């Protein structure tokens, strides 16, 4: 087990490294921060001074190595806009994002999974078809469209909820619902097909033939098996807890990581963008590892040895 984890950890670090490298070179090659931050009309001397101050006049590979060197010591650079450490800026915003993504995640699980299970148990019934139609709508409608519709209905027409910002207690509701809707829809669909696959297996019929009540067959035999593939999707959703709310945060002017990312990219605030990407990659990779370990626990067939030909 330890060797397995060590291997996965190594691969995780490699993945993060690749992400940072890619981000670094793309960002540096795609535009001039000096121009963005100082504006195009700035006198050439100040642009030159800016570049020197931030080390942008050195060769790219040198900048990259310098960045890595500092990063390994925990220094991810400073924001070019206000000079504060990038890490600080990013971590400041994390709670705000989590304030909407975590409840949204809970919403996805609490609505999506039961809906999928119900649909599978009542296959081809009206409830099943309705659930599937709603779920298709849920994940095909782009989140900003849904957001705008919700704002129109609940803020403009009914006036129950604020349309943007994070001032009042109720201002999180619309963002959470918007975020949760698509995920719940996907989860419903996925859970349904996982359940259907399991319900068609011989051991379900054998359990019924034993005389076990149907309710128990579903809960004790079908669900544990359907949980296995469902874990993959849920794990993926956990991985997007940090960065999955970019559009929603923008539409609702919610002060989280998503908005920070958008503004940093358009400003070419390199250090901040890289810090965010590092955080996102780390989250994704961690949730993947957790899912893999969970798999071994959920499915005893995966705990075995292997063979190779000579």
């Amino acid at each position: 087990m330890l060797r397995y984890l060590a291997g996965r950890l190594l691969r995780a670090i490699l993945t993060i490294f690749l992400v940072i490298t890619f981000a670094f070179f793309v960002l540096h090659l795609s535009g001039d921060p000096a121009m963005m931050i100082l504006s195009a009309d700035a006198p050439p001397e100040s642009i030159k001074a800016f570049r020197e101050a931030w080390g942008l006049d050195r060769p790219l590979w040198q900048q990259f190595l310098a960045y890595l060197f500092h990063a390994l010591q925990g220094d991810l650079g400073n924001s070019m806009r206000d000079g504060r450490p990038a890490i600080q800026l990013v971590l400041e915003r994390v709670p705000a994002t989590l304030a909407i993504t975590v409840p949204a995640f809970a919403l996805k699980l609490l609505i999506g999974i039961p809906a999928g299970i119900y649909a599978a148990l009542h296959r081809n019934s009206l409830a099943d078809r309705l659930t599937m139609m709603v779920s298709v709508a849920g994940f095909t409608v782009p989140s900003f469209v849904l957001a705008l519709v919700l704002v129109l209905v609940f803020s403009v027409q009914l006036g129950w909820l604020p349309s943007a910002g994070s001032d009042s207690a109720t201002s999180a509701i619309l963002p959470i619902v918007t975020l949760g809707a698509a995920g719940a829809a996907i989860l419903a669909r996925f859970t349904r097909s996982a359940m259907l696959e399991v319900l068609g297996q011989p051991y379900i019929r054998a359990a019924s033939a034993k005389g076990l009540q149907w309710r128990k067959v579903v809960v004790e035999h079908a669900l544990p098996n359907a949980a296995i593939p469902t874990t993959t999707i849920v794990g993926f959703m956990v991985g997007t807890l940090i960065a999955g709310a970019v559009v929603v945060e923008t539409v609702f002017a919610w002060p989280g990581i998503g908005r920070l990312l958008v503004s940093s990219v358009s400003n070419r605030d390199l250090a901040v963008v890289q810090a965010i990407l590092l955080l996102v990659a780390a989250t994704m990779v961690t949730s993947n590892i957790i899912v893999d370990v969970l798999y071994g626990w959920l499915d005893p067939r995966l705990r075995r040895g292997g063979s190779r030909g000579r």
Partner: protein
Amino acid sequence: MAESTGALVSLQGLTVDFDTGKRIVRALHGIDLEVRRGEALGLVGESGCGKSVTWLAALGLLGNRARIGGEVRLDDRNLVGAPVAELERVRGRRIAMIFQDPSSSLNPVHRIGRQLGEALRLHRGLDGKAAEAEARRLLDRVHIADAQRRLGDYPHELSGGMNQRVMIAMALAGQPDLLIADEPTTALDATVQAQILELLGEIRRDSGMALVLISHDLGVVAENTDRVCVMYAGRIVEDAPIDTVFEEPAHPYTRGLLAALPELDGPRRALTPIAGVVPEPSNLPPGCSFAPRCERRIEACEAAPPPSTALAAHHRVACIRA
């Protein structure tokens, strides 16, 4: 051994229709069958003949796309149309069933001990230590060595033969009067097959349990049952004692099956296959379903499906030319 006191289970005019959404297809066309206490009955036929469907229908295991008609009498009750709770009381406790692929008939994420325990709790109200002791005893009964360790194993850690023994042990947990074995050895190796069939015979002798052995292999049925029903396209075409079926088969399909089987002893003779293919249930010929493939057919065969007539005391055939 107590004398058989009449029928344990009696199927009368059992029909099964499947609703495919677009139309209704009849899979069973009126099955009449009796199983007496302690009897060993074989049910033989090729794929699609309805041999498994018959008993899945009797136990209500076909799902809600199936419409079941006719009667299945157990004691004084009719199981067809009975409420689910009643069927659940019959399953496992009066009539148990084991299936073809034992390794996929067991839940892959539960240990053997837990699955056995489930049956014991359900039928005998046993829990904890008592259940564990009884589970061990059942595993011993089906000749699984090292029973204590096996209780903690998962199905994928056991071979197919051992999983089938576990299935038999689970079936025995409820002390049923009748065991339906649906192709129990088809997925197993030859020597393991012999072991399992021997085990079934031994259990029958010890407990007086009745057995319905479903198979496509006449040889398997021959050695392990007293009486055989041959099925074709959803009907029983012949019902006779084992020796009669082999020595004086009356129905052309039964004869055809015997002629298509190679022997292990004696001179090698050419195999005589049965021409044609088994018809689709949705596309049965009018009249006798076997007529298009039958050498002895006459015009009257295509008029109506032949009724089952008694040739001798215990020998019934559905053929007008028998």
